[in-house]
């Protein structure tokens, strides 16, 4: 260890610190600490002259460690780190000691105790600073191209937004053509426009955009690497292709639940799902006079507790289409709550009521029953709000089922090393802070693959995902904080304890000349330290929070 030359800057912060803690005395004390070659106190270290003083003293006293004792690192650490960097000192050779928010401000009536505490805290800070090592923020180049998995309305919208900003997009779609779920929809609720009117122009714009390379009937076979450098293997009808992309957007959508075994679906000819009804509406309805719809089929039940969010609207839209097609038809919608939230949907619900569609609320413990053996003739329902059994004549029974995740979400999640939520949809990093990002950097999520959504919400999420993907691609590099974990391969015995602990799946066992060793992808590691604390051989060391540094602080606590 070259000779350590620590400089310490104690801040008065006006009266905030100086008014309680005897700053000059504490500064003198700091001078007595081993390896401290310079110590000063100033009125406002964070002010312009405070910063310039730090930079000046670093070169003047050839300091190779800096400790600032002032407010809280949460707001000012970046400021002082940049000051050190500007003076040519690696910014991780800096330690922050909080003697305001966690000392002077909270021990105002006990100045001597506060001063003693400040001395202890500074001693601990210096003890850690002495062992700090320079760290380089590894700059990872980001390839300015994006892989969009899924060619539905979400995938295409994301691709278009990216391409319009000049980025190269690989749009991969499993089916023969683009369009996804919207292809077999007849009309879209709220504006009642024909599904084609939305999806066809979208497909045209995608196909004609030279920045978008469309790969239909293609599947993603494998993804390796990390943000900025994903090596993707595509499988186009047996023929494999390798591409390199910087970011990935998952827009694989979802599928409609086929309620096999419920209400006689499958063995009675006049029972359809809403999707099948859409096709019937496209081709033209028969002369059915009595249509009964049952909502929440296969949803909000113990096995599948979630609400499908848009199925109520699909049901109401189809009911309105039936009435517009044949006003004499009698349409009943049996529901357990009508989820027409927001301004547009509630207005559409009123329109349905105007058209004479009648809504009956049933309860989970008294579900409707089907009458009729090979064809449904009637539906018995216990009207929950009237407390009375009703028998509705029924020529056609439509079951409203929720969107469910594709089975192969499991494979995609394992391939991209992203996690699924308990319902089987993809799990975003944070519902509010990062709704369209995965915990793994560089991979984003939008559309029904994340949660059942309607078309406008899917397009919003697609644009949001594109915005998030554009950030690293526009900057050209990512510089994750250097606080990451690293494995010392001479100490690692490959016991595997750390692998499952990492919430970001950044650790895996790789075989190296016959032996299994833990390997951490620095780009994916967020530096939480959970693996470091658990490693029984002490083989994982946490940059900037190494065991030795923390133990030095602990030992410095008691003189």
């Amino acid at each position: 260890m070259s000779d350590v030359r620590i400089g310490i800057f104690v801040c008065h912060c006006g009266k905030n610190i100086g008014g309680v803690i005897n700053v000059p005395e504490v500064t003198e004390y700091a001078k007595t600490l081993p390896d401290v070659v310079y110590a000063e106190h100033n009125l406002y270290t964070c002010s312009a002259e405070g910063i310039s003083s730090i930079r000046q003293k670093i070169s003047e006293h050839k300091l190779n460690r800096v400790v600032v004792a002032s407010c809280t690192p949460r707001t000012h650490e970046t400021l002082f780190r940049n000051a050190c960097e500007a003076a040519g000192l690696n910014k991780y050779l800096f330690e922050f000691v909080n003697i305001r928010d966690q000392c002077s401000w909270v021990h105002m009536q006990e100045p001597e105790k506060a001063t003693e505490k400040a001395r202890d805290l500074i001693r601990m800070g210096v003890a850690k600073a002495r062992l700090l090592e320079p760290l380089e923020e590894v700059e990872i180049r980001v390839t300015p191209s994006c892989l969009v998995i899924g060619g539905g309305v979400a995938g295409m919208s994301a691709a278009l937004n990216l391409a319009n900003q000049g980025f190269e997009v690989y749009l991969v779609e499993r089916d023969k053509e683009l369009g996804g779920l919207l292809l077999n929809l007849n009309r879209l609720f709220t504006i009642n426009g024909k599904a084609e009117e939305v999806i066809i122009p979208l497909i045209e714009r995608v196909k004609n955009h030279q920045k978008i390379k469309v790969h239909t009937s293609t599947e993603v076979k494998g993804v390796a690497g990390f943000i900025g450098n994903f090596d993707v293997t595509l499988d186009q009808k047996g023929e494999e292709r390798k591409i390199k992309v910087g970011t990935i957007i998952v827009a694989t959508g979802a599928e409609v639940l086929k309620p096999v075994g419920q209400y006689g679906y499958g063995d009675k000819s006049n029972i359809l799902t809403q999707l099948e009804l859409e096709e019937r509406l496209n081709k033209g309805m028969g002369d059915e006079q009595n249509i009964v719809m049952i909502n929440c089929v296969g949803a909000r039940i113990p096995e599948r507790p979630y609400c499908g969010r848009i199925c109520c609207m699909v049901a109401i839209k189809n009911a309105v289409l039936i009435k517009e097609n044949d006003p004499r038809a009698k349409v009943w919608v049996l529901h357990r709550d009508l989820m027409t939230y927001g301004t547009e949907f509630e207005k559409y619900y009123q329109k349905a009521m105007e058209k004479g569609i009648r809504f009956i609320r049933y309860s989970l413990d008294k579900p409707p029953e089907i009458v009729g053996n090979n064809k449904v003739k009637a539906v018995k329902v216990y009207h929950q709000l009237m407390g009375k059994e009703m028998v509705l004549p029924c020529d056609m029974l439509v079951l409203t089922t929720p969107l469910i995740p594709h089975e192969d979400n499991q494979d995609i999640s394992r391939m991209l090393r992203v996690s699924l939520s308990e319902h089987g949809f993809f799990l975003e990093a944070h519902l509010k802070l990062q709704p369209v990002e995965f915990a793994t950097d560089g991979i984003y999520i939008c559309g029904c693959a994340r949660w059942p959504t309607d078309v406008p919400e899917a397009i919003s999420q697609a644009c949001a995902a594109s915005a998030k993907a554009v950030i690293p691609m526009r900057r050209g590099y990512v510089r994750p904080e250097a606080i990451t974990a690293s494995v010392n391969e001479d100490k690692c015995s490959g016991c595997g304890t750390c692998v499952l602990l990492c919430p970001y799946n950044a650790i895996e066992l790789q075989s190296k000349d016959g032996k299994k060793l833990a390997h951490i992808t620095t780009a994916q590691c967020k530096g939480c330290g959970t693996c470091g604390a658990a490693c029984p051989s002490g083989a994982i060391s946490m940059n900037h929070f190494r065991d030795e540094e923390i133990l030095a602080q602990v030992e410095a606590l008691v003189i």
Partner: protein
Amino acid sequence: MNNSVLIIGGGIAGIQAAIDSANMGFQVCLVEKSPSIGGRMAQLDKTFPTNDCAMCILAPKMIEAGQHANIKLLTYSEVLSVEGEVGKFKAKIKKKARSVDEEKCTGCGICIEKCPWKADSEFDAGMGKRKAIYVPFPQAIPNVPVIDREHCAYFLKGKCRACERFCEAGAINYDQEDEIIEVEAKAIILATGFDLYDPTPLREYGYGRIQNVITAMEYERLSSASGPTAGELKRPSDGKIVSDIAFIQCVGSRDVRSNRYCSSVCCMYGTKEAILAYEHRPGTKSTIFYIDLRAVGKRFQEYIQRAEDEYNITYIRGRPGNIELNRRNQNPTIWYEDTTTGETKSLEVELAILCQALIPPRDIQKTASILSIELDEYGFVKTPDGLSHPVDTTRAGILACGCVHSPKDIPDSVVQASAAAARAAEILSGGT
């Protein structure tokens, strides 16, 4: 300011749009009417469905926006006019005088401590007081106080000047004037959020007449640790800590006499607030009157289920007719029909909370005329082609996100904010 975006409104949506645009390398000017960014979310104690504290989510984003090199914060400011068209907008912004020099102030808070004059705190929804010189809430960004000239003794009667005397940084400047700032921008994002429906016109619910009938936002402030009662659910009439409360959904929503639309989030925040009550005092009993329990988002249904199983919350399907006052103990008595049994009954509780609707910002008409964009029949921003361009407005180059577009929860607002940033980026790189 060549590649620049003007963002109006500093709530969670405005902040998110600003951060995304700035991270994409564009210059951002974020204009916020109140002294600090943070918006409505800053007033919330906890947020559904994760019940994590609102400030834990919001503070990191506020700090990032406050310190971002590409973001220029103009708080305590209003947009006066916008000329030009997409790619070449010119906006005039009035930066109201804070009477405090932002450069010099270090946010030490001595002036607030020493100021003897008090006023109703808007942040605490009128439930608490603040000083004449104030910062809306402890974690405000910028952490620079503002002198409320209507309640400051110096501006009213020319005496006091306590803040100036105690300010070490010499930052108090009484004769600071409003400033007009010119800002150029290629795209504009409107994110001015929402206001809350004042339930007074619904006289049957007795808001304003019965002390222990309060709105959901007032409850949120009571329950918040930084609120007027430091988090203790003390009811207004006698300060008694409540343990038997009721929530009424759809107050001002799905009602011909106020707003016919559904405000999307009240079912969820109603349950959240009931859970907060139980968390503050285990054993608290909550009753929630609803007609459709719209828990449609991720983990919302489980949230409701847990509320019922673990937090002593009872859901009754029925919209209360009116609230009467039991004079002896100031308890509100709620008359309702339990529509699943057809019985008309009354329930006396210690505190009744009205889950008020989300309505467009009160100055939306003015904003719409300044930006010359159209509003829909409810007063929210109109999206001409809602299906394929959900965040566009009727004027090219101007985008809208968050609740100013239509009522939605925080996750959807954040998604729309990023979407608006993406659309703006398209415009800024030459698209339309």
